[in-house]
């Protein structure tokens, strides 16, 4: 066997061995069943014995495989560095990094930045040797473990082995592992944002960030540079977000709610089955499309019509961004509201009709109040969508942090500022960059609160009608 099997091939080998394990396990279970007088004496169906063998073959080998690859390059690098001449080893860390990179490039046959010197060539050779040694031993270990596992399980298969229960258990643990990964990733992101935000708050105090009325994150990068010292008051930015979200909600709540009412209460079944998916297509349009629609069509239209009325409209106005964002959010409101309105029991409508209420009275006085918690929940979810929306505002709302409530003026939003702070070359630990994390954290907290409120409200509604 080729000892230098590369990792992809090794992965395939593991899969192949698992399939073999499955077949062998199943065959073995038939064999032991026949010894004791037929399939009915087997605790589980043969597939379960096969699956058990396959799982025990695949899981340990995959774990070894992934950990090996995770740490391999690091260990090899350390070993290689240890053999370098002293004057190279004592270089500062970033220079040493360059050399290690060069060595790696040599190994992979890529172009090398510096003149290759003999000690580096030797190191590269060493690296290559270690690498193939490592792969060879990985191959041997993995195959040995896989075959060993298959053999051990083969031995343990007997009619009383509760293979079904074992397999179910293992599957349960795999599922737990997957959900844990999802949860821990989220927690990890939150923690890293929190960590960077705390670094920011060491430089700019939290109180200044939350109460400052001016936002101009430009800072002198070097001490001798002329430039503003930077001010990080979040209020104008946050007000911009609020203003645009408010405009968006003014568009989307009435339109979304009324179309939901029409769809669920008035429209006949065929119209509904066509219109509802159509409305939901709105939610599928990429936001960047809405963005240039806002910037190139709606904003000029507003400026022109404002000009006719003698109003002073900026070319990038909160109104344009808000209107288009509102259109984008309509399906969120209408689809969720439609669902909750449909969930209102027919018996309530019947009760109102039986009292002689007209259709619109029934809707206004009975259906909407009954669905209200659910509607509020859907609106809150839509608000948190609006607050987090980025593309439309980046393209249509502008950059200057004006503290204004005039929708015809340019404003900026939290998301726009995060983009602006992180685009371009930045020192990673300047307050300007770190401010993005603080803004991100704030955005996260606000949407989290909205979502929690929405969920609580929606749940309360559910309890009432089940």
């Amino acid at each position, binding site marked *: 066997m080729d000892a230098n099997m590369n990792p992809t091939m090794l992965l395939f080998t593991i899969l192949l061995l698992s399939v073999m394990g499955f077949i062998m396990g199943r065959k073995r279970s038939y064999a032991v069943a026949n010894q004791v007088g037929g399939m009915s004496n087997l605790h589980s169906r043969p597939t379960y014995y096969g699956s058990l063998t396959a799982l025990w073959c695949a899981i340990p080998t995959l774990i070894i495989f992934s950990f090996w690859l995770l740490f391999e390059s690091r260990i090899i690098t350390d070993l290689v560095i240890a053999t370098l001449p002293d004057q190279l080893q004592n270089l500062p860390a970033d220079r040493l990094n360059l050399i290690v990179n060069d060595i790696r490039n040599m190994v992979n046959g890529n172009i090398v930045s510096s003149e290759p010197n003999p000690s580096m060539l030797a190191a590269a050779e060493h690296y290559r040797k270690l690498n193939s040694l490592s792969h060879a031993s990985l191959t041997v270990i993995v195959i040995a473990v896989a075959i060993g596992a298959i053999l051990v399980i083969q031995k343990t298969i007997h009619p009383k082995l509760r293979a079904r229960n074992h397999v179910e258990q293992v599957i349960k643990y795999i599922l737990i592992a997957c959900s844990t990964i999802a949860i821990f990733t989220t927690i990890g992101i939150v923690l890293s944002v929190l960590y960077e935000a705390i670094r920011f708050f060491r430089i700019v105090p939290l109180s200044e960030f939350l109460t400052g009325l001016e936002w101009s994150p430009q800072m002198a990068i070097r001490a001798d540079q002329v430039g503003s010292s930077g001010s990080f008051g979040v209020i104008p930015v946050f007000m911009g977000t609020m203003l645009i979200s408010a405009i968006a909600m003014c568009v989307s709540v009435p339109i979304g709610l009324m179309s939901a009412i029409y769809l669920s209460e008035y429209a006949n079944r065929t119209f509904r089955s066509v219109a509802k998916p159509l409305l939901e297509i709105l939610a599928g349009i990429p936001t960047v499309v809405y963005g240039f629609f806002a910037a190139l069509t709606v904003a000029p239209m507003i400026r022109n019509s404002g000009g006719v009325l003698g109003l002073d409209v900026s070319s990038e106005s909160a109104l344009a961004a808000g209107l288009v964002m509102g259109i984008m959010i309509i399906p969120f409101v209408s689809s969720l509201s439609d669902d909750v309105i449909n969930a209102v029991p027919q018996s309530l409508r*019947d*009760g109102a009709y*039986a*009292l002689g209420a007209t259709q619109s*009275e029934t809707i206004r*006085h009975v259906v909407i109040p*009954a669905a209200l918690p659910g509607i509020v929940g859907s609106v809150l979810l839509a608000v948190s969508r609006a607050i987090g929306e980025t593309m439309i505002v980046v393209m249509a709302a502008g950059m200057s942090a004006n503290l204004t409530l005039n929708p015809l003026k340019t404003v900026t939003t939290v998301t726009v500022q995060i983009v602006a702070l992180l685009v371009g070359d930045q020192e990673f630990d300047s307050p300007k960059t770190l401010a993005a994390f603080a803004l991100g954290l704030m955005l996260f907290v606000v949407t989290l609160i909205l979502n929690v409120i929405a969920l609580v409200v929606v749940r309360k509604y559910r309890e009432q009608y089940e």
Partner: protein
Amino acid sequence: MSAEKKSIYPDKPELQFENKRKFTNKREPLVDRENRKTVGQPTVENPRMSCLNVNVYYGDKQAIHDVTLDIGRNEVIAMIGPSGCGKSTFLRCLNRMNDTIDFCRLTGTILLDGKNIYDKDVDVVPLRAQVGMVFQKPNPFPKSIYENVAYGPKIHGLVQNRAETDEIVETSLRKAGLWEEVKDRLNQPGTSLSGGQQQRLCIARTIAVGPEVILMDEPCSALDPIATARIEDLIDELRENFSIAIVTHSMQQASRVSQRTAYFHLGDLIEVGSTDQVFLNPLHQLTEDYVTGRFG
């Protein structure tokens, strides 16, 4: 008034179960199973409502076949029959609730005080104030107890100010036998009441708009026996002022609360007569099968 109140529930409720045996009789009915013409006495003198040759269709499917039936004044008429025989459908025709189902069609005439309620010029809004309805599952609105009762009078413009509303709410709740239990908590949501109280609230809500006829579709099927007994007493009291048509699955209930009984079978009205007659001496074989428990 409660002192001399005559309860249809005697002091010994266990007697009710004794009575059940009496439904069985030895005499052979006069009409066999194949004959689907209505037997008995479908008309009464001076009826409140009278239905003539009513057919109801859901799309192509006929749910009611040529039913002729009167609802008298100050009487309780019970409608019984196996599930799916069209009792609810028929009941819902009486206040045009079936109008809310767009593929439901009706032919024939239904007169309320001599006027066909299916005439073009009849408006369902006042009609439904005249013919109220109570449903199988209590369905109080998501409003306070007070608002639940006040809602009907408000939308019909029966009240001008708060004092009038207060009065109508109190009298309706009193008539529904609920006032004493809720007078201190009128502002709590209607859904906070127990099932039986909710159903009485729904009855109060119906009474509040001053109907002449009250339709009840299995009003007790979601309630426990004690709540059921209270509603049955209430129905008996309400007979003084209203005509009541009640659909029920319980033959004991029909025999306790009604004066006349109509037996439906697969969309046909099989037999109508006084309750005693229908339960003790049914004319039709199908009726006998049903009331003796051989069917459904």
